[in-house]
């Protein structure tokens, strides 16, 4: 056996001394997680119960992820809004909801930071904490780079930038039973949860913050609780002071015993986010213009999707780009993958090479029944539905494709037939009304 993609695991362990660790590192290794290098951190790939069980836990009960390798930046001051409006891809005046409300304290929004040439620096969620105070959460190791970028564009404006990387604990609880688990550990959970809509948050992780009182654990610890995540399923991201981080992790696992809540590693996170159609930064989006991809919702289009409603760094490059090249989602007919580092290329049905494969994973919770894809989370799935999984991901090609177009993915081992799609895993729970996800009588 030769392990092409797993081969890096052994090398990573030799580099261990140079890699960063989160506060949960000892917990992960005590639980005998398979660890790997991700964004300069030594992170769990999966735990002994296996990635398949972890993936299923998030689709049917709940799973928790250590995401404290991610970076957070505080953007503060009278000119903070102007700076973000200039640098971030969403229009903060119109980015909330179908009615296009402005971002306001307690709301957050997903978008990207671009260079002038339209290339992606990183994707991010921007949280508005107060009138002149924002938190920007980006990928691991990106805190200092984004601060440099923002500082370069801040000029002499009244903005203070603070890097909270490694000074904050962050974990995600994702899955349909997430709210029921949190009910067991929060103080006054009905008040905290019952109106917490998708992409809203409350509370704060610093005791001295005015908002800190609004979300507390039962032991009084303040947290910032956000109705967001990166799996496509219902759930939350939680920010907490690092010294309470491991306690919270164990508290959630204990509270979730009855619901079979599982700790989940990066492999399950990767297969879940791909099935949800979400990009991995620096793999599906990166040093090429952020346009003609499945993520136009991250751009400041007007309601008709025809023009941008603001100017921002990178907009001119995107608008003047005149190329048929683009990025598309795909889904296969069985679970077999190609390996992207092999490398894997994209062929038309006639065998003409048109691009490369950016991501190729198996979403183990879905399968085809006749001509339709069901998820284990689908309410109308067939009674005897036992998914074996489907290969899915993203391709970058030099020609225009349409949904339903067949393409072939080829690596050194095999060729697999897949189809271009605008949706991989159906019936995802991320946007389900929170009242339906809480215990009966708790809202």
């Amino acid at each position, binding site marked *: *056996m*030769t*392990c*092409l*993609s*797993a081969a890096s*695991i052994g090398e990573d362990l030799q580099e261990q001394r140079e890699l960063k660790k989160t506060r949960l590192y000892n917990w992960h290794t005590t639980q*005998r*997680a*398979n*660890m790997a290098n991700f964004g300069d951190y030594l992170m769990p*790939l*999966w735990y002994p119960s*296996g*990635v*398949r069980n972890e*993936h299923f836990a998030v689709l049917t009960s709940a799973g928790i992820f250590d995401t404290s390798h991610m970076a957070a930046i505080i953007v503060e001051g009278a000119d903070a809004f102007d700076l973000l409006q200039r640098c971030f891809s969403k229009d903060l005046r119109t980015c909330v909801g179908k009615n296009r409300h402005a971002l306001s304290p307690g709301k957050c929004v997903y978008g990207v930071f671009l260079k002038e040439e339209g290339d992606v620096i990183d994707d991010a969620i921007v949280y508005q904490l107060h009138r002149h105070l924002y938190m920007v959460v980006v990928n691991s190791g990106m805190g200092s780079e984004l601060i440099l970028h923002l500082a370069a564009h801040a000029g002499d404006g009244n903005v203070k930038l603070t890097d909270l990387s490694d000074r904050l604990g962050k974990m995600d609880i994702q899955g349909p039973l997430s709210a029921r688990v949190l009910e067991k550990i929060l103080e006054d959970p009905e008040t905290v949860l019952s109106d917490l809509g998708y992409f809203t948050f409350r509370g704060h992780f610093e005791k001295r913050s005015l908002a800190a009182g609004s979300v507390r654990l039962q032991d009084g610890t303040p947290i910032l609780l956000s109705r967001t995540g990166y799996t496509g399923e219902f759930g939350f991201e939680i920010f907490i002071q690092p010294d309470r981080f491991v306690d919270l992790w164990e508290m959630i696992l204990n509270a979730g015993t009855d619901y079979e809540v599982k700790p989940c590693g990066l*492999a399950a996170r990767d*297969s879940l986010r791909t099935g949800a159609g979400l990009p991995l930064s620096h793999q599906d989006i990166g040093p090429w213009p952020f346009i003609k991809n499945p993520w136009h919702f991250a751009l400041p289009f007007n309601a008709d999707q025809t023009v941008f409603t603001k100017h921002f760094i990178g907009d001119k490059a995107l608008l003047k780009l005149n190329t048929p090249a683009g990025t598309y989602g795909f889904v296969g007919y*069985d*679970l*077999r*993958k*190609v*390996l992207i580092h092999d490398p894997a290329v994209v062929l038309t049905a006639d065998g003409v090479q048109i691009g490369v494969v950016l991501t190729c*994973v*198996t979403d*183990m919770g879905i399968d085809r029944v006749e001509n339709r894809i069901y998820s284990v989370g689908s309410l109308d799935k067939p009674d005897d539905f036992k998914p*074996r*999984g489907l290969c899915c991901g993203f391709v970058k090609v030099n020609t225009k494709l349409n949904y339903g177009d067949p393409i072939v993915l080829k690596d050194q*081992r*095999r060729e697999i037939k897949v189809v271009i799609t605008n949706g991989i895993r159906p019936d995802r729970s991320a946007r389900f009304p929170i009242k339906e996800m809480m215990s009966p009588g708790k809202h």
Partner: protein
Amino acid sequence: MKDIGELIFPADLQYTESHEWIRTEGESVKVGLSDYAQDQLGDVVFIELPEIGESISRGAEFGTVESVKAVSDLYMPVGGEIVAVNSTLEASPELVNKSPYTDGWMIEIRPANPDELDDLLNSNAYLEKLKG
């Protein structure tokens, strides 16, 4: 991930550097993947095996094993004819993780040249290779 000390390498088997195990049963040998390999791969979700009756030479690929994170080739520890394949793995690939040395066996070979068996590693030598 298991420490090497926790992994099991039965002393009555032989091993390859590419992590296959070999059990001699009379005139033929059974082949599977070692405990170390299954632990590194994680959940095995799919296995491609050869047809019964095929003859494949030593070191050539006889199939692939696909886990959630990796796709890996399987290599013939000795050349010979495939006389049986474990078709249970088609529906239950997880047996490679659960029982790598018993229910997770993959193919049975009738060696063309039994002398090739002498070149395989015993469990101690394999363990030493893993420790590097």
